């Protein structure tokens, strides 16, 4: 069974080994522009004065992501950040935070500004949607809505481009968003095949 959660809910979560040791705090959620899969997390050292760590936690190394902690088998799963972001980060838009970016449809309509990214937590971590602060025309201005993304998502450049059909599957909360994403992706697949 999969779970949907907001990426910003992961910020600051403590990383705990199955042995009970607290080894880090989550800093950034890092996802891959090509395909929209979550690569993993950058980390902060524990404590108020702990700075960013050179090691990162890959999604593949996770035991589970819970509401209060990120569980890992042990501390040896942390790897150097260049092993994760080196090749991908060097190409195109490396290291860009999407929070605050504008969302446009393929037909040039501005839908709003990204305030969060919706992740599906299962065996892999997939980015399935954006939470946006809607512009007038999509909803009443400033209202937050969830916008589904295609499963062949590719992100590059300063603007985030989504298919125009995504507007028909906008949801107001996470409860029904999983179904909306599935319907949207099914329509894209059947419409293009």
């Amino acid at each position, binding site marked *: 069974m999969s779970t949907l959660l907001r990426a910003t809910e992961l910020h600051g979560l403590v990383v705990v080994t199955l042995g009970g040791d607290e080894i880090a705090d989550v800093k950034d*959620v890092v996802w891959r522009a090509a395909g929209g899969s979550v690569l993993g997390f950058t980390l902060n050292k524990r404590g108020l004065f702990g700075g960013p760590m050179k090691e990162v936690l890959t999604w593949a190394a996770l035991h589970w992501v819970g509401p209060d902690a990120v569980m890992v088998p042990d501390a040896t799963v942390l790897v150097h950040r260049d092993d994760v972001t080196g090749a991908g980060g060097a190409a*195109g838009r490396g290291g860009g935070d999407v929070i605050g970016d504008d969302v446009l449809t393929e037909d040039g309509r501005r839908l709003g500004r990204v305030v969060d990214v919706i992740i599906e937590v299962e065996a892999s971590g997939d980015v399935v949607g954006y939470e946006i602060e809607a512009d007038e025309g999509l909803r009443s201005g400033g209202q937050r809505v969830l916008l589904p993304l295609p499963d062949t998502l590719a992100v590059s450049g300063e603007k985030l481009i989504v298919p125009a059909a995504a507007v028909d599957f906008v949801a107001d909360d996470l409860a029904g968003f999983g179904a909306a994403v599935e319907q949207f992706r099914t329509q894209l697949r059947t419409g293009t095949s």
Partner: protein
Amino acid sequence: MDVSPLVWVVVAVAIILAVLLAVLVIQRRRRAGGVVVVGGAADADAAPEHREES
């Protein structure tokens, strides 16, 4: 002009508090997280099949 020792104490405390506040602000920014996307269109062309399997 003589300055009261109390003034020096107040100035010192103010400087210490300002430094502490600055450190806390800087540290808060260092620890702030984001939702970071890595890679670009070149990667999209290279591995488009990744998500189609799901």
